[in-house]
């Protein structure tokens, strides 16, 4: 089979070539080389300039600390929750909630959170003035707080569903029930038993996803701009500002900063890795001591509470955004708008059409390509009877681990040189880099778990391989394929930095518009855009779950 081989090659090219080119394109200007802007010799001057900027040390430290805190919190919440609740009804029910939570773009979740927790936000309105006595918002610096706690919260509520999803995919490969009984029979608490026996193999499977969270949190722009500190902002936010400055010399500084960003992310990963070893050693020590931790009910409740809270933040945030989008005058401390109106929507819909079409268009094309490439790669596995090794998995995760900003700067230079700046093709390709890994990760498990005996029967009846694929495997895996496509679609809709830089302001999506309009600070506008931003992925997931139900309504065994 030649086709899958080509596809595999192509996938490799799509994942690795832009990354390498982008990094080179960032590194050259960082050391002063970019002839079009007059940089014709290598110099370390721009690094010196970078480190001389006011507050740069604080920006770097802040970026590092918030990323680490985000990852540690998200991971702890997820692992304790899974340890305490895996195999229960509550756990099974939550599995259905995870996809929509994951689908919501980061920016929308951040806006929703801001409108909930700000001093003028919904939560305080609910209890004012009757409980708090406030008739004006108090002067608490909650959003944009100097320590970045609001930003960490905003990231954690989005990373918890992601880690949960990855964990759900890994759990079936563990002997959950037997192990739990074994641990319980020796008198270990639920959480302790899981941590001693199952956490190590589980962590081995989700480790790359945790790294991806750390890398993402250390280089995120949109969430940081919405919730993060401002004086100074985190490193990635400042890099983007310098990139857009009319003083073109600052682009060299931005490139130098993008390399520092890469080092920052890699050091965060290294520190995490060191922490892994430390925690592992500690756990073995505690385990050898025979501590049972039987009274873990409080911890179980706490973890359930935190997971519920993060889901609450997302859903309540969405509800507030929807409410803002139809709000007229809405003064503090009123819990509800003084008046409801459709005027905001009527005003904004004509302007939204173009970005909306671009969003859907780019997301559909990049997702379709990603699904086809993934199918090609996975089919090759089937034909060769070999599972992709660790190398391949690392490769797939590469675009999720290398900070976006470090190689998209370089890619932007590339698009300017090739004249493909602000072209649809370039935008689709850059989205594909990030959509592909997610589609691959979502689809590979169901694909590999497929019962091959169906195919053997078909083959025994003399059906050629490609027809087996078309008539037997693909229809049976349609639900999984559509779900993977919905994940890819959501990822594309949520892309901020690649769209801003490669779209060059001419190709705008709902996400870039939402962040751009956020500077006006008007809840109504933000409400409309963030609501649409959330709606698109939800629609994707709705189609993914409804279409198979309709198509297979006469096939009893394929129903849910």
């Amino acid at each position, binding site marked *: 089979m030649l086709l899958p081989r080509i596809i595999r090659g192509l996938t490799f090219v799509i994942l690795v070539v832009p990354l390498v080119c982008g990094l080179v394109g960032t590194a050259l200007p960082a050391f002063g080389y970019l002839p079009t802007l007059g940089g014709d010799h290598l110099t370390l001057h721009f690094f010196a300039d970078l480190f001389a900027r006011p507050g740069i040390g604080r920006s770097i430290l802040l970026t590092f600390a918030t990323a680490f805190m985000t990852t540690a919190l998200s991971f702890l919440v997820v692992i304790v929750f899974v340890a305490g609740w895996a195999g229960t009804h509550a756990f099974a029910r939550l599995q259905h909630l995870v996809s929509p939570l994951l689908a919501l773009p980061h920016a929308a979740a951040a806006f929703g959170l801001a409108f909930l927790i700000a001093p003028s936000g919904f939560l305080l309105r609910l209890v004012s003035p009757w409980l708090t006595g406030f008739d004006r918002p108090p002067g608490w610096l909650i959003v944009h707080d100097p320590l970045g706690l609001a930003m960490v919260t905003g990231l954690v509520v989005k990373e918890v569903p992601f880690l949960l999803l990855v964990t759900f995919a890994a759990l079936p490969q563990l002997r959950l029930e037997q192990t739990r009984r074994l641990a319980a029979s020796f008198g270990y608490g639920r959480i302790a038993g899981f941590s001693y026996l199952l956490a190590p193999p589980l962590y081995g499977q989700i480790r790359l996803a945790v790294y991806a969270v750390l890398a993402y949190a250390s280089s995120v722009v949109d969430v940081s701009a919405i919730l993060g500190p401002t004086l100074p902002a985190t490193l990635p936010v400042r890099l983007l500002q310098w990139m857009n*400055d*009319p003083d073109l010399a600052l682009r060299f500084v931005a490139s130098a900063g993008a390399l520092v960003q890469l080092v920052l992310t890699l050091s965060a990963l290294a520190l995490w890795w060191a922490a892994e070893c430390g925690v592992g050693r500690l756990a073995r020590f505690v385990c050898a001591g025979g501590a049972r931790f039987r009274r873990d009910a409080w911890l179980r409740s706490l973890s359930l509470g935190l997971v519920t809270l993060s889901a609450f933040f997302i859903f309540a945030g969405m509800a507030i955004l929807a409410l803002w989008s139809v709000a007229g005058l809405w*003064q503090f401390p009123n819990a509800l708008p003084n008046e409801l109106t459709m*005027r905001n929507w009527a005003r904004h819909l004509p302007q939204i059409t173009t970005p909306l079409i671009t969003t859907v268009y780019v997301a559909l094309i990049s997702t379709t390509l990603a699904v086809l490439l993934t199918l090609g790669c996975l089919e090759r596995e089937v034909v060769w009877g070999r599972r992709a090794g660790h190398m391949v998995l690392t490769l797939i995760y590469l675009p999720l681990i290398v900070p976006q900003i470090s190689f998209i700067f370089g890619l932007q230079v590339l698009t300017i040189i090739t004249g493909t700046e602000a072209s649809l093709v370039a935008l689709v390709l850059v989205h594909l880099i990030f959509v592909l890994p997610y589609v691959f990760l979502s689809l590979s498990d169901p694909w590999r778990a497929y019962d091959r005996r169906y195919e053997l029967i078909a083959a025994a009846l003399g059906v050629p391989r490609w027809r087996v694929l078309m008539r037997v495997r693909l229809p049976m895996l349609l639900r999984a394929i559509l779900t993977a496509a919905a994940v890819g679609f959501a990822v594309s809709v949520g892309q901020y930095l690649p769209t801003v830089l490669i779209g060059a302001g001419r190709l705008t999506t709902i996400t870039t518009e939402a962040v751009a309009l956020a500077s006006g*600070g008007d809840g*109504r506008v933000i409400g409309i855009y963030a609501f649409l931003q959330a709606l698109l992925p939800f629609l994707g997931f709705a189609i993914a779950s409804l279409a198979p139900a309709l198509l297979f309504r006469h096939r009893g065994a394929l129903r849910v």
Partner: protein
Amino acid sequence: MRSISTVITSGVTLALIAAVSARAQTPDPSDWPAVVSQAKGETVYWNAWGGSDNVNDFIAWTGRQLQKRYGFKVVEVKVADTAEAVAKVVADKAAGKNTDGSVDLIWINGENFVAMKKQNLFFTPGWATKLPNWKYVDTRNPTVTTDFNEPTDGLESPWGNAKLVFFYDSARTKKADLPNNAEQLLAWAKAHPGRFSYPAPPAFMGTTFLKQVLYELMDDKSKFYKPVDKMSFKQYVAPLFSYLDQIKPYLWHEGRDYPKDYPAMKQMLADGSLGIIFAFNPSEASSAIEAGKLPKTVRSFTFSGGTLGNTHFVAIPYNAAAKAAALVLANFLISPEAQFHKQNPEYWGDPTVLSMQKLPGEWQKKFAALKLGVATLPPSELGPIIREPDASWTDAIEAAWKKRYGVAH
């Protein structure tokens, strides 16, 4: 196969069209019918500060009108700072992209205009005064031809006037307590801790506030209109920064965070987080009341000694791809119809640059009948206009501010 060949053919056709249009004649505004016919089918990428709803709405309305009447498309490229648009043109030039550039029209004035003019980044020769609708423009107003001390030379066409005006909620703040100059504002802020703030420069409204304070505190006002002298800059801005140091502990969040931009301050006024806000448009509050964003009790005030005022323009970069359509757009912006729509607080409320005497009778009546809104001061009460300083002050003040307050302690 057929569909592929169709795609290829259409792709080639598109490429050809692009090539032809790039080579098309440079439009000459004195041959207006030719400009109009050349404009047809073009797409104007209009780079504009996108932080205000009203403005975005107006730009969208303009786009619809032009599509209907002249058959070209207008796409607003929303920038967070006009400097970003300048950066794009500079980058184009650096990359040798001297035709078919990425920006067709920029909403611009002040330091950005001067920067582009100095680097020869504008479409020349000057075209603004050759536009058919130039005949309506109020040329007695010096700011339509002199932008921050810099002659426009017809390189940009005016489309609105701005004046710094303050707003308060009469339901929460007594009129008698309102400040009448920067010094009194400081006293007011001290008496009402946390109820005043300004957008962090380089957000232009923040910079405008700084320039207002600087002007009031300067002994020798003539310095304001001369280029910044690096040697004496520190000495001249010392009163400003001493003022800012004094007011900082009484700012919203003690100056550890600043409002994103002036539209964000409107909701903060509605919520009562801030007691006094300001904008560059006398109708801002009326317009916001109309849109249900501010309570009906909000009113305007200004300083009797005068506040900053200027004119804002549109300009065409030298390498714009759609120069003809950009010219038609600029001309439409100074039509009585567009100016009337723009001045209506229901849409934007931005003051016109046209001279009433020059307008046809029916338009004079329409403008005269336009209700400016409950919260808008009549022109007679707006107070004197303080002209903008030399453009070099803007960047210098912004840089000094960032150095001093860009990292909170």
